[in-house]
């Protein structure tokens, strides 16, 4: 069960992530209207937003330390925020500015911050192996640091996921695999891509515990992640957690979502997980309304400041494209 401090932390992180994604959705459309040209505007290229998936980030990262490694996906912002990535530098990176995490070289799908041991990548499931590797490093060095690999439900059908699962279980690596099951692999629903309804059963195939969290339940995930992280730190090996979560936006911004059943998003929003946590915590006294309001205000201020920082920051010199290839 979380302490009051942990509940407040998770709530603030989730509000920060939500406000970040909603702000980004609006900023992304600058320069792309009435003609949607993906390469145009303030934030060009692809954009994959995680509004609705905040519990997956908060409920796990609440248990992590800066020296725990996290690998994330093409939909990384909420996890980056929960892991403590510098919000100004992250936003500047997404804006393509020189003061971004990689001086504009990586962009939204390639946010890497060694200061908090966070990296992400755009190739599906290819973060699973590196997380196992970071876990291996911790084990070799004799620390109790762990690794967390974030994956989508689509990634559970990709070879790299299965190899990493086997390796982690075989070598008893301190890694937690977290599948954010938002029910969609771009346009393909889970039932049409995955041979099992619940990926947590696949853990048994690799000899590790598997846990299923239903309906975006932050507190249930808190408990499951607490146990998985503790297991890993004790040297008892990996765990797979699958979280049923919600994708409010399209796969990428600009996705017409013609494949999505009418009313699905509205139905999900009606049971918004952040509101559920807030209401429950206030009702049972673990958080006061004043604390919650203050947390929300702080979260929004931090996000607004990050976007302002990114806007004002300078672009890199074009020749910087040629540097930082090698150390």
């Amino acid at each position: 069960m979380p302490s009051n401090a942990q509940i407040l932390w998770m709530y603030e992180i989730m509000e920060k992530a939500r406000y970040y994604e909603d702000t980004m959705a609006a900023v992304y459309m600058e320069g792309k209207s009435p003609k949607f040209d993906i390469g145009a505007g303030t934030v060009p290229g692809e954009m994959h937003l995680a509004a609705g998936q905040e519990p997956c980030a908060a409920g796990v990262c609440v248990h992590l330390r800066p020296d725990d490694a996290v690998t994330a996906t093409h939909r990384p912002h909420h996890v980056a925020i929960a892991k403590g990535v510098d919000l100004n530098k992250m936003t500047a990176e997404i804006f393509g500015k020189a003061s971004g995490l990689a001086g504009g070289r990586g962009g939204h799908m390639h946010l890497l911050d060694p200061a908090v041991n966070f990296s992400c990548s755009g190739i599906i499931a290819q973060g699973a192996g590196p997380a196992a590797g970071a876990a291996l490093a911790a084990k070799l060095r004799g620390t109790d640091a762990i690794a967390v690999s974030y994956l989508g439900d689509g990634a559970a059908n990709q070879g790299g996921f299965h190899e990493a699962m086997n390796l982690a279980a075989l070598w008893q690596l301190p890694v937690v695999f977290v599948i954010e099951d938002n029910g969609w692999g771009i346009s393909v629903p889970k039932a049409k891509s995955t041979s099992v309804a619940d990926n947590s059963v696949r853990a048994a195939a690799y000899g590790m515990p598997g846990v299923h969290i239903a309906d975006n339940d932050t507190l249930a995930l808190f408990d499951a992640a607490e146990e998985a992280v503790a297991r890993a730190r004790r040297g008892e090996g990996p765990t797979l957690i699958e979280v049923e979560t919600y994708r409010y936006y399209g796969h990428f911004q600009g996705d017409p979502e013609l494949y999505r059943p009418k009313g699905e998003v509205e139905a999900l929003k009606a049971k918004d997980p952040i509101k559920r946590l807030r209401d429950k915590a206030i009702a049972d006294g673990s958080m006061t309304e004043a604390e919650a309001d203050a947390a929300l205000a702080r979260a929004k201020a931090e996000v607004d400041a990050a976007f302002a920082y990114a806007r004002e920051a300078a672009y890199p010199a074009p020749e910087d494209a040629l540097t930082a290839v090698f150390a």
Partner: protein
Amino acid sequence: MTSNRILPVSRAMSEAIAEEMRADPSVFVMGEDIGTYGGIFGATGGLLDEFGEARVRDTPISETGFISAGVGAAMSGMRPIVELMFVDFFGVCMDAIYNLAAKNTYFSGGNYKVPMVIMTATGGGYSDAGQHSQTLHGTFAHLPGLKVVAPSNAYDAKGLMTAAIRDDNPVMFMFHKGLQGLAWMASPDAAATVVPEDAYEIPFGQASVLREGKDVTIVTLSMMVHKAMEAAEALAKDGVEAEVIDLRTIVPLDRETILNSVAKTGRLLVVDEDYRSFGLTGEIIAGVAEHDPTLFKAPPRRLAVPDVPIPYSRPLEQFIMPDAAAIAEAARASLG
């Protein structure tokens, strides 16, 4: 039958596939989001509605799984068209492509055929960064056993796709995202062309001389064709006549057209959106040099993406992408 109907490349591709699927029940399509969505880059629009789920299959995100399944289906007498959504994803399934599809004909002394098309989206210029913007012509052309085609316009796209489906060999059909004519990504006007309604083939190994000129030969393909044509117009204003050759297919390569042109102009500039070193541009130049280095009146030149991951930020990406101005400048420089 004459036609005055203009199609963007994406619709030319899906029309070619539909016509072959109507004519030949062994043709089917697999890939990620190629069904209901019609392909992320529009290559399979309308196919699910016409042919149904058995022949137009949305796959899980399992490239090794479904591409190697394509190899097996092809060896069992089917003609699969498999989409690798972005060419950059080849990393997770390359074995199926270069060790199976490309080699099983050879390993069987010709007794097995692998009549599959792997169509895949290439190209950058819209800030999709290092894992979603690559072109990789050289990577696939380098490995024996694969045919590799890269159209620059809709007319060629339909003819090359039809030829690819009918070919009994594995064909990499590399289409540039920025040529597809998608509503949400800018494309050159000249990419959309009049496309005949009836099926037709363009044979592989035949480059197209898009513009004749006596002063410098520009050999190029795919998106860079359009930049080269823009450069050629600018050069013409200065009295420099560039000959622009659109390769259309990389394997097989039309070396004869290249040689004839360089014999005429004496100056060669190769332009490719792929990485510079160890690839297509070097191969074209080496091919001419081996044949007869005295053809060159000036050192041959090449323009390509430098050997760096493709950066995200717009000024960085624009810096590394060849454009019409850079092509014109390189062409002028070869004239001394």
